[in-house]
């Protein structure tokens, strides 16, 4: 592609980029996806779960076509401290189709979605890295890949959380450690039938399991586990803000997490098939970047669209929706022949009006609330201590429960507890 011209160029073949290209191609727009991996998804990682409401809008029959691992029907949250754990389990699943969520593996899923875009008419080029954006003044007019240049009316930046392009072109402020977390993840395969038996699941049903507690050594973060068809995705996420001060590496934390009796027995006999790592945009609304400008739109993780609420973590449903909104803005601009910053603002407004804007705003105080060592050490100790008090019988004669509970709460710090509860209530 020495010097080619397209209506639109999408940088990155992940969920946001492929969704944008799929919709553009369907509308008859000449669109190119440039993906640096050997295939779309080769550089991408998820913890595990996608809420599929936006995918359903993009591809209504995705349930028949998409490579989904399992539909989540079982939710568990565990609070870990000192080898003890307290677990809440909910079985019920989604009441409506648009409330469903599925466990996915990105190297499989993204490849499929990029193929869908290609089948719809998008040109997908793998193994090519975009080195820089071509600018005319403040306007993005194309991309440079080595000695090749490709031009377009608009460039959609879908190059992920570690988006070098927008930063280096001065289109957005550099990512700060407080805005991101790092994740380590491992996938373990099992013999057929083991997942169902071990987690108490039916053939296509899946489990989502989040963990918080002393495994992150006081840092904001936690563990996750999702069941795939015949494998388990397990990992840990920790905020970068104070990571240098931690008394453990992320690998130490991962090992402590996987050694927890509750967790270790789930992994027994599993064979490690991949170790991955990735960043997660975590600061919510505060971290959302510039969304668009003259000749460009930023989507997905590159735009910072992610919400971590502790008990649910989301990014992929935002990615797909933002790709769709970007496509809508480009289709409109294409009709009007206007790709100026003003025309691209249509995308910003669509994002703000949609669930993306609403969810990011609603939970904007959460990162600040969660960035509190007490939540990951003192309170998990309190919860497990209370459980211990409640369930212990030792033949020394019972003592009244309420004072025992108060003692546990006192140890965690009553004033701090009350203030954190208030802050948490406001953040949600």
């Amino acid at each position, binding site marked *: 592609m020495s010097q080619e011209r397209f209506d639109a160029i999408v940088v990155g073949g992940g969920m946001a980029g492929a969704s944008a290209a799929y919709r553009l191609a369907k509308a008859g727009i000449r669109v190119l996806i440039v993906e640096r991996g050997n295939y779309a998804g080769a550089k991408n990682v998820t913890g595990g779960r996608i809420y599929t409401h936006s995918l359903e809008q993009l591809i209504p029959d995705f349930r028949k076509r998409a490579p989904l691992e399992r539909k989540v029907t079982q939710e568990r949250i565990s609070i870990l401290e000192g080898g003890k754990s307290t677990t809440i389990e909910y079985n019920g699943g989604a009441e409506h189709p648009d409330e469903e969520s599925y466990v996915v593996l990105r190297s499989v899923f993204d490849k499929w979605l990029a193929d869908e875009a290609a089948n719809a008419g998008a040109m997908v080029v793998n193994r*090519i890295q975009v080195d820089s954006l071509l600018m005319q003044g403040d306007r993005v007019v194309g991309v440079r890949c080595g000695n090749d240049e490709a031009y377009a009316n608009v460039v959609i930046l879908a190059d992920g959380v570690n988006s*070098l392009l927008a930063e280096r072109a001065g289109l957005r402020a550099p990512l700060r450690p407080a805005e991101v977390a790092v994740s380590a993840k491992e996938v373990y395969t099992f013999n057929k039938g083991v997942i169902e038996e071990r987690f108490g699941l039916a053939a296509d049903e899946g489990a989502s399991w989040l963990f918080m507690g002393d495994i992150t050594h006081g840092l904001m973060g936690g563990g996750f586990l999702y069941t795939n068809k015949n494998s388990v995705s397990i990992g840990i996420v920790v905020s970068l803000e104070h990571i240098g001060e931690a008394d453990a590496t992320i690998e130490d934390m991962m090992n402590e997490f996987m050694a927890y009796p509750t967790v270790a027995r789930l992994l027994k006999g599993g064979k490690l098939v991949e170790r991955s790592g990735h960043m997660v945009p975590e600061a919510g609304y505060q971290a959302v970047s510039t969304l668009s400008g003259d000749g460009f739109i930023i989507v997905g993780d590159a735009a910072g669209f992610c919400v971590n609420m502790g008990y649910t973590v989301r990014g992929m449903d935002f990615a797909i929706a933002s790709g769709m909104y970007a496509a809508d803005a480009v289709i409109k601009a294409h009709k009007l022949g206007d790709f100026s910053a003003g025309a691209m603002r249509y995308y910003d407004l669509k994002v703000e009006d949609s669930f993306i804007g609403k969810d990011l705003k609603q939970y904007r105080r959460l990162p600040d609330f969660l960035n509190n060592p007490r939540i990951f050490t003192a309170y998990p100790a309190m919860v497990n201590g209370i459980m211990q008090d409640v369930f212990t019988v030792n033949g020394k004669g019972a003592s009244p429960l309420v004072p025992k509970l108060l003692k546990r709460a006192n140890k965690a710090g009553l004033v701090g507890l009350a203030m954190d509860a208030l802050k948490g209530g406001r953040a949600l």
Partner: protein
Amino acid sequence: MKLEEKLGVNKYYVNEGHPHIEIIHDYPDMAEKMKLVNACPAGLYTLQDDGTLAFDYAGCLECGTCRVLCGNTIIKKWEYPDDTKGIEFRQG
């Protein structure tokens, strides 16, 4: 299982002799160095007995964490590996 062994199950196309990340090994500030030691999900930054920082780009997962943490201090250069090189996730 040691982290090096874990990384051994991954599929890499290492660009031999062309590190995509370069660092200042004898950067003086210990707090900066500890960020990388603690955060790299591939454990590629290790503190040596003489206090310098060792780094091996071959096992890189291309997450960018080190760039965000120390892009203005220890990290001299951070690029993605050249076309087709680096990690290839088969699970993701």
